[in-house]
């Protein structure tokens, strides 16, 4: 396939030189071209930031010697409201401090393990070229410091993590973070940059079970996390801690996945990533809805905010978001733009699902009516359903009415005096004073002219044959005739 393409290209451009074709202009050359020479200028102390903040661009045009000092701190922190967990951290946070260097830099790494640590620790930076990513060179007992150096040959966004035995437990306790190796030309300027990192956590107690929760080794081996979180705690990036932004701004997220086990289907609800540097590499893809971030991997993504509101960051393996905590908020302030997004325009009732099975009796009556086999029993059954949907709100389910407001239909002397009133009032309403069963009512029933003749006939028949009323039979033809005649007492509606 490739060969065919090359031949075609050659033919079109009428070139016959033997230039190597593989190294296209978009190929950065990888580590072979990553050594930009010896460090120049004075040493630079790396700016490390706690999540969700990102250090400023290095702003350098030449490789430097960059000093990184990272502390290993074992500490108890909240993992959810009222729930604490002993985290092992790089820099006191989960994820660990964000490190930003430039391709070609020589990084002098000091790993300091606090004296009150229980465990030895080390660090494997995926941005390191060399066996173990620095792990073997940084194995550090409590109260000790290790130093090693590496040259950052490949640009990209890389995970770092602890690799001391047992690796899984060190990672599960939060020992991971991101190091950004900027390309020599730097990254494009954006309005905001944020650092978000997913991780899965395994506790002995259930999700949100209060108190201090120890690490659950069995659950970790089974890959069945209790929590899946952004930035180490449920609510780390929600409410007051939501990531702020403004309409019109372009936001770049640096998103890592520490694992130890789960891969992330990273998604921002209501946004489309304009660009995704998938796998944290050099190339970007455009117009992406959800991007996969492997455990021990990372991605960068950019999007412009057009419409204000809260954008929810989730792992779209969605039960993790709503049942295990993988949820963060990016809150965009600014003016609405109804041309792009209208907001809610209509909220109307929709009864589509009422047809089955509650209105089965109505359907049966309609079918029988069409074949001329409609019985009074069918009319009563259908009328009962229609009464429940249309009339019972005022006259009450058992026709008892509401005293002083809506007259009763049950055992009604008003109906008994003239049963024909029932379909008339349904169709034309009733306004003015009436006396029913010895009590006075003076209200306004609107005409129910939206009902079909069949429906009016069925409701009237149901009412006449219920609650001690005198009985009777109203047909569809009766209803049609009544519809045409306007009685004196008719309501003009509300």
């Amino acid at each position, binding site marked *: 396939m490739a060969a065919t393409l090359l031949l075609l290209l050659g033919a079109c451009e009428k070139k016959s030189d033997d230039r190597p074709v593989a190294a296209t202009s978009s190929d950065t050359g990888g580590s072979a071209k990553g050594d930009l020479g010896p460090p120049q200028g004075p040493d630079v102390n790396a700016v490390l930031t706690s999540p969700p903040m990102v250090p400023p661009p290095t702003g350098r045009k030449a490789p430097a010697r960059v000093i990184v000092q990272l502390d290993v701190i074992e500490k108890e922190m909240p993992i959810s409201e009222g729930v604490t967990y002993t985290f092992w951290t790089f820099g006191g946070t989960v994820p660990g401090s964000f490190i930003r260097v430039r391709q070609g830099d020589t990084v002098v790494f000091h790993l300091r393990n606090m004296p009150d640590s229980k465990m030895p620790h080390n660090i494997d930076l995926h941005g390191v070229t060399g066996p173990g990513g620095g792990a073997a060179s940084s194995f550090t007992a409590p*109260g000790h410091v290790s130093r090693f150096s590496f040259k950052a040959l490949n640009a990209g966004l890389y995970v770092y993590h602890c690799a001391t035995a*047992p690796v899984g437990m060190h990672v599960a306790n939060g020992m991971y973070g991101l190091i950004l190796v900027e390309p020599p030309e730097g990254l494009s300027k954006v309005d905001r940059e944020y650092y978000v990192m997913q991780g899965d956590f395994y506790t002995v107690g259930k999700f949100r079970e209060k108190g201090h929760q120890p690490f659950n080794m069995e659950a970790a081996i089974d890959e069945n996390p209790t929590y899946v979180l952004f930035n180490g705690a449920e609510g780390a990036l929600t409410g007051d801690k939501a990531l702020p932004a403004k309409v019109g701004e372009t936001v770049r997220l640096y998103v890592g996945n520490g694992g130890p086990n789960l891969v992330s289907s990273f998604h921002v609800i209501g946004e489309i990533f304009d660009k995704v540097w998938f796998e944290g590499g050099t190339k970007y893809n455009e117009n992406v809805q959800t991007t996969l971030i492997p455990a021990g991997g990372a991605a960068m993504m950019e999007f412009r905010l057009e419409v204000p509101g809260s954008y929810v960051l989730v792992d779209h393996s969605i039960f993790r978001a709503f049942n295990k905590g993988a949820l963060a908020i990016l809150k965009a302030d600014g003016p609405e733009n109804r041309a792009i997004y209208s907001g809610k325009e209509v909220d109307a009732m929709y009864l589509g699902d009422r047809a089955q099975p509650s209105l089965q009796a109505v359907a049966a009556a309609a079918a029988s009516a069409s074949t001329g086999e409609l019985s009074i029993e069918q009319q009563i059954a259908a009328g009962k359903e229609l009464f429940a949907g249309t009339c019972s709100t005022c006259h009450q389910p058992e026709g008892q009415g509401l005293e002083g407001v809506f007259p009763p239909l049950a055992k009604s002397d008003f109906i008994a005096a003239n049963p024909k009133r029932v379909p008339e009032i349904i169709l034309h309403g009733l306004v003015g004073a009436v006396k029913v069963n010895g009590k006075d009512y003076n209200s306004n029933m609107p005409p129910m002219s939206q009902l079909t003749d069949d429906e009016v006939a069925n409701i009237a028949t149901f009412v006449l044959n219920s609650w001690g009323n005198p009985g009777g039979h109203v047909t569809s033809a009766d209803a049609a005739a009544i519809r045409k005649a306007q009685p004196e007492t008719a309501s003009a509606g509300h």
Partner: protein
Amino acid sequence: MRRSISAAMFLLCTGGVLAAADTGFAHLTGGSFRSVLKYEDVKNGTRVAPFDLQRRPVTNGDFLAFVRANPQWRRDNVARVFAEERYLQHWQGPATLGPNALPEQPVVWVSWFAANAYCKARNARLPTWSEWEFASAADETRRDARSDPAWRERILAWYSRPSNKALARAGLQAPNAWGVQDLHGLVWEWTEDYSALLVSDDNRNQGDPDKLKFCGAGALSMSDVENYAVLMRVAMLSSLNGADATANLGFRCARDSP
């Protein structure tokens, strides 16, 4: 538990005769033992000869007596090659304990060399890793409780707590089936052959161990990778040099049984 009660009864009955002997040691019968370490030259379990092990970790009070009798091990006298600068740093003075080192608390901030010298002064020695592992496999009722996930969880729960609070007194926890206390849940402990525990610095190199690091005994690896509890202890010991001292590392002594 039953063992310790019967031992105490025995002491009461025999009176001062045994009290004059060293009663701080429990006797462990030894035997064939399945270590979590995979020794290449061991096929049917590791042999552990009968030995005695101190029932409790060595305390500040014990170590103070040793230092007073052996002033070359005072922190102001000790050779730096045998103990780093932080050796016994939590004591108020070279021969005084003070509020941060109560007499009944296990001694910490001790180097391997100092621990070794202490045990020699008591006509004892540090336990080997195999002996330590053999003794620590027991819980209160079983001599080998290691396959019980609940037992492992208990140990891990301690491992996951930082050492930023005062240590408990030695001997507060219930004795295990051998009558030994505090093997877990109080402090890490030096072993005589700790430096042979060369779990690779980078734990993930298990398929490609640096065999040049292992002289004679052959390469070690874990035969029970689910036993994180022991793995972490090995990792801790393998991160240390002999002169190192930490806030949570103590020791106890062992000796051959007659």
